[in-house]
């Protein structure tokens, strides 16, 4: 496998972006600018469309109209973004470290070896446990480790702190701060308070 070059300094710009499910428009006319090194927090009540917007930015849903541009991204150099949804992609019967190695394989490995990443998120001791036995919060920590093993400049995180304890929330904030300091970009949907430097906030409409 040719070790691909890590891409740097990507800016996100959207122009008149509308996203939604099927024909239902959930957010219209969004013109966002998120520069490398800064973050955008998505807030809003349940059902506002935060997850939908993240999926659209990740390219997993088609925008209903408008455009999304990642400036500075080199499409030749492979994918440049991580998306973490509500589901953890953790399969029982594979051990924690096997799971992480597999993710590194398919996403292209980076400089951080899996065991180091596990230590960083506080799962060092569970490395050889069946990943299906992890508690809700431990699985979420494993997902965070995925962000570390394959470095990518854009992180799209959907409620990264759900099911995490206080230490876990601090961990999320620390990881994000590191990422931003290294010139990364992050869009984070959350209901919790995550202390972030240089973070703008976008609140999506209220409609339960």
């Amino acid at each position: 496998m040719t070790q691909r070059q890590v891409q740097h300094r990507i800016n996100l710009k959207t122009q008149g972006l509308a996203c939604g499910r099927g024909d239902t428009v959930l957010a219209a006319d969004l013109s966002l600018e998120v520069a490398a090194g800064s973050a955008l927090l998505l807030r809003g009540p349940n059902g506002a469309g935060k997850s939908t917007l993240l999926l659209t930015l990740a390219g997993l849903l088609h925008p209903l109209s408008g455009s999304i541009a990642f400036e500075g991204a080199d499409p030749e150099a492979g994918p440049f973004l991580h998306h973490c949804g509500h589901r953890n992609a953790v399969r029982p019967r594979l051990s924690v470290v096997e799971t992480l190695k597999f993710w590194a394989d398919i996403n292209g490995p980076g400089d951080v070896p899996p065991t180091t990443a596990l230590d960083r998120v506080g799962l060092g001791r569970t490395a050889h446990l069946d990943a299906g036995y992890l508690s809700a919060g431990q699985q979420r920590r494993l997902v965070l480790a995925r962000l570390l093993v394959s470095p990518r400049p854009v992180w799209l995180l959907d409620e990264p702190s759900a099911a995490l304890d206080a230490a876990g929330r601090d961990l999320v904030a620390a990881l994000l701060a590191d990422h931003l300091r290294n010139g990364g970009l992050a869009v984070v949907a959350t209901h919790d308070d995550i202390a972030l430097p240089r973070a703008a906030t976008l609140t999506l409409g209220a409609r339960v």
Partner: protein
Amino acid sequence: MSGFLGVLRRELRLSFSGGGEVLTLVLFFVIVGAIVPFAIGPDRALLASIAPGIIWIAAFLAMLLGLDRLFRPDRDDGTLALYRMADMSMASVVAAKVIAHWLTAALPLILASPFLAMILAMDGPTFWRTVLSLLLGTPALAAFGAFGAAITVALRRGGLLAPILIAPLCVPVLIFGVGAIAPLGGPDQASSAMLFLAALSLMAFALSPFAAALAIDWGEE
């Protein structure tokens, strides 16, 4: 390439570890073959005459019914979404999965077929032809099957839908597979059936990863 091998390794690990899915599939194959005598009576001549057909049908059903585990668990737990953002194309993910499916769902059946041949009173030469035709034909089933599984993966519960979508498309495989064993038209017919079978397998294996990748990408968004 490390991605391709990673997927392959993971699939094999999952199939052979604790769950014993491979064992389940082999047992299913054997049971389907073994209940036939209960249903149609123990007449040895009759059994021997239809034995190749039964083995093929049992293999056909076992392979189609093993399809559900190909993409669905990955979709349910979110791994499929990861694949879509991985540093490898969806088609190569599918190709790795087809190979893994053949290794874990077809090869074990072929290894278990002597047992079925025995209880169905099959004779030696016929048995060897059966093994050969299974070896040539099952890759086509795996490839078609992956396509069917990809079509139904976006559904909340696919269940039996993939088998019924794919079974009609697989009829040629069955026809040539059995035709290659028990040729009414003589050895000429048999060898042309073998050729058709091999051609089907090659074609299906070459095309299905792309068709399946299309279906997954479009179905998921």
